[in-house]
C-alpha cells in the first residue's frame, strides 16, 4: 500500500505536465526539454521548409523580380496545364515500371543465387555491390563515355558488325539506355535487402518443407517468397521513392533530350527551379510530387498490412 502511494506520487507529475510537482508548478516535463533540441532541428530542416514550400507555391517567386507577391492558384494552374508536366509523369511511370521490373527480377534472382552458393558468398556479394558505391553523377559520366558515338565502347562494338549507332541522341534508345544505367547501379541494393531477408528465414520451416518432399521451386513459391514478400515490398518502396526524384544521370547524359524523351518529372522540376528560377511553380511541382509519393507509400503500406492480416 505504501509502495502504491509512492508510485502514484512519482507518476502523477509525468502524466499531467503543467500541474503541481512537489508543491510547485511545473510547466513542461523533463522529456519535453530533452526532446526540444531535436524538435527544433526537425522544425528547421523539415517542417519549416515544407510549410515554406506551400507558401511559395502561391507566390510569384522568381529571382529576376523583387519581393515575392501572392498570385493565388496561378502556379498550380501553370504546372497542371503544362503538357511537359504530364508527359514527364508519363515518362517517370515508364521509367519506374521498366526499371523497377528489371531491378526486382535481377536483384531478387541474384539474392536467391548468392543465398544458395556453397562458397565465396560474401566475396560475390561484395563484388556485386560495387555499383552501389559509385555516385550517380559518375554513373552518368561512365554511361556517356561508354555510349559516346565517337569513341565509346558500344559504338565501337556496333561498328564491328557494320552498324552506326547513336544511342543517347536517339529518341527510341535514350530512355532505355538511361534505365539500364539505373538498373546497373541500383539492382545490388535490391539484392542486398532481399539477401538480408533470406538470411533471417527460419531454418526449421525450410527444413520441414524439404522433409515433406518439396523441391526447390515449390519451396521457393510456397515458403520462401511468402516469407520474404514484405522485404521485397520494402525494397520496392525504397526504389520507387528514389526513382521519383531521379535526376543526376539524365542531367549528365542527355539533359532531358532528345526531343524531351528522357525528361522525367524530377528533371522537369530541376529545370523549372534552377534553370528558369521560377521557385513558385517549382514549389507547386514539388508538392505534386510529394502527393504522389505519399499516395504510393500509403498503397505499399496498405498492401503490406494486408499481407500481415
Amino acid at each position: 500500500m505504501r509502495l502504491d502511494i509512492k508510485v502514484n506520487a512519482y507518476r502523477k507529475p509525468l502524466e499531467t505536465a503543467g500541474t503541481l510537482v512537489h508543491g510547485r508548478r511545473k510547466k513542461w516535463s523533463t522529456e519535453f526539454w530533452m526532446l526540444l533540441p531535436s524538435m527544433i532541428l526537425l522544425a528547421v530542416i523539415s517542417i519549416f521548409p515544407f510549410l515554406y514550400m506551400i507558401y511559395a507555391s502561391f507566390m510569384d517567386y522568381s529571382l529576376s523580380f523583387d519581393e515575392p507577391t501572392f498570385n493565388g492558384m496561378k502556379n498550380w494552374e501553370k504546372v497542371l496545364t503544362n503538357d511537359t508536366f504530364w508527359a514527364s509523369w508519363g515518362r517517370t511511370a515508364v521509367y519506374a515500371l521498366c526499371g523497377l521490373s528489371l531491378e526486382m527480377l535481377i536483384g531478387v534472382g541474384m539474392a536467391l543465387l548468392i543465398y544458395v552458393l556453397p562458397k565465396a558468398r560474401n566475396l560475390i556479394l561484395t563484388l556485386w555491390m560495387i555499383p552501389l558505391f559509385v555516385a550517380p553523377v559518375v554513373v552518368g559520366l561512365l554511361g556517356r563515355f561508354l555510349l559516346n558515338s565517337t569513341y565509346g565502347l558500344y559504338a565501337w562494338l556496333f561498328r564491328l558488325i557494320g552498324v552506326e549507332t547513336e544511342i543517347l541522341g536517339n529518341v527510341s534508345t535514350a530512355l532505355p539506355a538511361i534505365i539500364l544505367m539505373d538498373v546497373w547501379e541500383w539492382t545490388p541494393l535490391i539484392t542486398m535487402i532481399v539477401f538480408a531477408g533470406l538470411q533471417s528465414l527460419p531454418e526449421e520451416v525450410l527444413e520441414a518443407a524439404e522433409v515433406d518432399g518439396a523441391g526447390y521451386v515449390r519451396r521457393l513459391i510456397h515458403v520462401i517468397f511468402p516469407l520474404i514478400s514484405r522485404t521485397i515490398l520494402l525494397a520496392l518502396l525504397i526504389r520507387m521513392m528514389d526513382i521519383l526524384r531521379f535526376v543526376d544521370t539524365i542531367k549528365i547524359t542527355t539533359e532531358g533530350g532528345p526531343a524531351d524523351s528522357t525528361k522525367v518529372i524530377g528533371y522537369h522540376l530541376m529545370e523549372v527551379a534552377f534553370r528558369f528560377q521560377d521557385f513558385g511553380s517549382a514549389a507547386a511541382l514539388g508538392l505534386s510530387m510529394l502527393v504522389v509519393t505519399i499516395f504510393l507509400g500509403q498503397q505499399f503500406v496498405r498492401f503490406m498490412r494486408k499481407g500481415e492480416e
Partner: protein
Amino acid sequence: MKRRTVFQITALVLVIIMFTGACSSEAPIDTKSKNADKINPNKLVDAPFEGWVEGLPKIQAPEGFDWKQFKGVQINVISENTPPSSALAANIEKFEKVTGIKVNIEQSDLGTVVEKVGLDFNAKSAKYHVIYADPYQILAKYSEHFVDLNLFNKEPTMPHIPGGLEDFVPTQLEVLGYMGNKEKLLALPYDNPTMVLAYRKDVFEKYKDLFMKEKGYDWTPRPGMTWDQYYDIAKWINQKVKEGVITEVKYGTGHQAKQYDSLMCDFSNILAANGGDYFGRKDIGTIGTIDPGKSAMTSKQALESVKFYNQLLKEAAPGSTSWDWNGLAEAFAAGEIAMAPEWHEFSAMFENKEKSKVAGKVGWSLLPKGKVRSANIFGGTGIGINKYASDDEKKAAWLFLVWATSPQSQYMILKSDLGGSTPTRSSVYELPDVKKGMEPGTKESEEMPNLLSMKSVLKAWEAENAYMRPKIPQWPQIDTYVFTELSKMIAGKQSPEQTVKAITEMVDEATGN
C-alpha cells in the same frame, strides 16, 4: 522582469530592426584606397608585377598606392570551367604575391555557375565575390546585384583599367559590360569565344578538282560561301564516303544539336544569317532590355531557317543529336567530320597532337552566308563584383579584376598551356608575335594555337558578321524552349511549322506579351 515582458520587448526590437532595415537605402560603397591621404593621384606608377610585355599597357596605380593594403582578404571567384579561368588559377600566385590577397577560383559547368550565383544573389550574400557574369544567363537577370565598376575606375586613389575601356572591343564591352543602359559598368570582358567554321583543309584540297568537275564551283570554305552550298557540299561528301571515294572523314558535316544551349547557338547562326531573330528589337543583343516585345519567330525568315536546319541535320553525322560543343569538337578531332560550325577556341584542341588526329589539317572560315549575311554567334562573358561583399572584399575584387582583364594577363592566358584563350584586348592583337601566330606553320602559331582561327574571328567580330542573342532576363527560359522544340523537330516529332508556332507561344508567355 517577467519572462513574458522580456519576450514582448525582444519581439518589438526585432520588428523595429527589420522595419528600419527594409526602409533604409543602400549605403554608398567606399571605393577609396585605405591610405588615400598619402596618395598622389596625379602621378601613375607601374604595379610591382613581374614579366611585363613590351607594347602592352601596364597595370598602374597612383603614386603611394599600397598594393598590400588588403593582405589577408580572401576573395572567391566563381567561373565556368573555361580556359581563361584555368590559366588564371594556374598563375594566381603572381597576383597573390603582389597583393597578399588570397584568391579561390571555383570552376563548374555554366549551368551550375548560374544556379550558384542565383542562390547567392537571392540570399543577398557574398559567398562569391567575383562573378562570371554570363550576359544572357546571369547579367541580364541579376544586373541589380552587381557593383557599378565605374565607381572604382573613376576613383583617383585606386588603380584603373590599364589601357582604358577603349582597349576592349567596343561591341564586346557593350554586350558583356552593361545591361539596359550604359549608366553602370557591371562587368569587364573576360573571355570571348565566337562560332566560326572549322573545316578539313586536306579533304577540301584533295577533292577540290573532283567537286569542281561534278558541281561546277570552288568548294573551299571562304567568306561568301552560302548555307545552301554548305548543305550541298555536306551531301556530296556523304555520298562520296558511301562510294568509298573519300576515306579521310566519315561525314560531310557535324552539328552541336543535343537538346541543350548548343543547339540554340547552332541554329541561331542560320536564323540570323537569313535576317531573322528571336525578337524584333535591334539593340536587344548588345545593351539588352527587360522588355523585348513580341516574339519574331512568326516571321518568314524564321520559318525558312527552321526548315533549312531540319533539312541540314538530316545530312549531319548521326552523333550530332547527342553532341554539344564538346562532343562535336571531339568528333572533329577524331577525324570524323569534314566541316562544322564550332567555337573558335577549340583550335587549341584540334592542334594538340596528343588529343587530335587532325592537327595541322584544320582551316577556319567565316560561317556561310544566308539570305542576308554571315552571322557568327558571340559567346563571351565578363567578370563583375557582387554588391553584397564587404567594402574591403569589393576593393580586393577590383584589384583582381584590374589584373585579370589587363592586356598583360590576357596575353599570359593566350600563351598558357592551360588556357589558350582569346584576348579581349585590342592591344594584344597589335603585338608582332600575335600577328605572326595567325599564320599556319609559324612557331608562334604552335605556341598559341588558338590564333589560327583568329583571322576569321576578327572578321566575325565586325558588326555586320556578329550575332548576339537576346540579352533579356527571361532568356534562360526562352533558350530552353527554343532548343527543346528544335530537338523535337529534328527527332521527327513535329514539323517546322509546329516548331515555330510552339516557340512563339511559349516565348510570348514567358515575356508576358
